């Protein structure tokens, strides 16, 4: 298939240069900060792995990490099954397909801070549609700025709104690639709808589902702008996810050393979990 050719490196060179410039230089900066202490005036002192130890032991980091994992876990728990269900019930051809796809993709094309603002406006008590409906029609006491639970629910619903379509589109792409003959054979074999899902649709969606879970994990684990604009991490620290905390430390307090150490730990966790996911989900194929 592919031929051995070392000259191919020349083709890759522009990409390599560009990404290396953007990834390696900042990464070195981060590594540099993470092992030093500064008191301003551009004076730096060797700190070793002190910052890493301090971050890993700090309650604040552990709490943020815990919230981050809870958030990502809930996101995957809701978005993946919901995405599969919506994809399964989509029409497979006809006029409505492109309309559905375009409408579904729309939330993903809205700038992330606008998503935050939009949900802010949507959920304001008295003014927002959802805030008004919950408080004044259903009589549920809902106020995102006061109650951590309301804030959590809002952040989760917002992310479901924002990103479930990614899972839908991926699964849908997997589904339409199944030839009709499979469904016809299943009909003739007398398979139940559940069997059709279990033995035909799910196996054929596996590749795209792997991509969906990985992308959703990475993006929800790294989420910053939307919850920051929506809740600012509050009330209190209840919705302060890892990124929000990191930016607070780095740009708010300008504690460069701890922020850098935290960045590296953060990145390492993302890579590690992605790798574990990937290995687990593709284990079957290797056999």
């Amino acid at each position, binding site marked *: 298939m592919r031929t051995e050719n070392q000259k191919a490196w020349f083709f890759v060179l522009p990409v390599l240069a560009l990404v290396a410039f953007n990834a390696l230089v900042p990464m070195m900066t981060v590594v540099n900060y993470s092992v030093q202490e500064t008191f301003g005036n551009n004076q730096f002192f060797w700190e070793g792995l002190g910052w890493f130890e301090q971050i890993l032991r700090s309650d604040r980091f552990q709490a943020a990490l815990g919230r981050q994992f809870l958030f990502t876990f809930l996101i995957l728990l809701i978005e993946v099954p919901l995405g599969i269900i919506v994809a399964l019930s989509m029409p497979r051809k006809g006029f409505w397909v492109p309309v559905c796809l375009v409408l579904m993709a*729309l939330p993903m094309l809205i700038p992330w801070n606008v998503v935050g603002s939009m949900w802010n406006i949507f959920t304001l008590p008295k003014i927002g549609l959802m805030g008004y409906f919950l408080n004044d029609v259903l009589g549920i006491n809902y106020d995102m700025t006061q109650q951590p639970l309301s804030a959590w629910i809002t952040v989760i619903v917002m992310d479901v709104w924002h990103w479930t379509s990614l899972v839908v589109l991926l699964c849908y792409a997997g589904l339409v690639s199944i030839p009709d003959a499979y469904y016809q054979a299943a009909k003739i074999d007398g398979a139940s709808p559940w069997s059709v899902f279990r033995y035909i649709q799910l196996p054929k969606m596996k590749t795209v589902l792997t*991509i969906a879970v990985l992308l959703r994990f990475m993006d929800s684990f790294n989420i910053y702008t939307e919850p920051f604009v929506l809740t600012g991490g509050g009330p209190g620290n209840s919705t302060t996810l890892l990124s929000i905390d990191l930016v607070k430390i780095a740009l708010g307090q300008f504690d460069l050393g701890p922020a850098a150490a935290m960045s590296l730990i953060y990145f390492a966790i993302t890579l590690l979990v992605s790798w574990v996911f990937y290995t687990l989900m593709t284990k079957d194929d290797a056999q």
Partner: protein
Amino acid sequence: MKKRSLIPILYIAFLMLPIYWLVAMSFKTTNEILSGFSLFPQTFTLENYVTIFTDPTWYWGYINSIIYVTINTVLSVCVALPAAYAFSRYRFLGDKQLFFWLLTNRMAPAAVFALPFFQLYSSIHLFDTYLAVALAHTLFNVPLAVWILEGFMRGIPKELDETAYVDGYSFPRFFVTIFLPNIKAGVGVAAFFCFMFSWVEMLLAKTLTAVEAKPIAAVMTRTASSAGYELGLLAAAGTLTIIPGAIVIWFVRNYIARGFAMGRV
């Protein structure tokens, strides 16, 4: 109508509600918004839009955003094309490792890079320019573009290349006149995703700009905090940010699903 189509209908309704609310809000007067709940604008006003289209801080925000997004899209696709070709056609030392390393950049939290990017682009005097944001966004867009294009290129049989060389085409001429037209759809999908991720990303765009290249998002946050409760204006600005995305997605509607499924992880 089949019972099954109820699920997509409900789902789309759920997606449209907040958008509807944003749009409805943008046509309301500040008075109406603050005076209480109304499902439809009672006194329909275009005032918020007039403000945006007449105030240079506002409309330059849009122009700035569109400029750096365009630069980023063109840049990302252009450098990704040869690389994707190499990955799809050749084996070379370290190809797998390189591909994986490219993808890991997609996993890096933007928050990690905010500060070092600020310092990097300040030190090379690109801070507050379109190029700074466009370059910064290539961090996650170039790997994505390579990934998508590689998927499309793998679908083109190698015989096409060989036939062209036999016919005496030089590589650049073959690439532009024969190969590119064959992966038009792939280029479209890749450009769409670059556009999308550059358009929606705000943390880096905000960090790397101050006045000259300030993106619309930054203008919005400033307005939200300085002018107090101008919800109508904010909603109108938000509504306008949806439009470019909606236009672009309409053009690639037949390829979206395929674009999403492309490539390998």
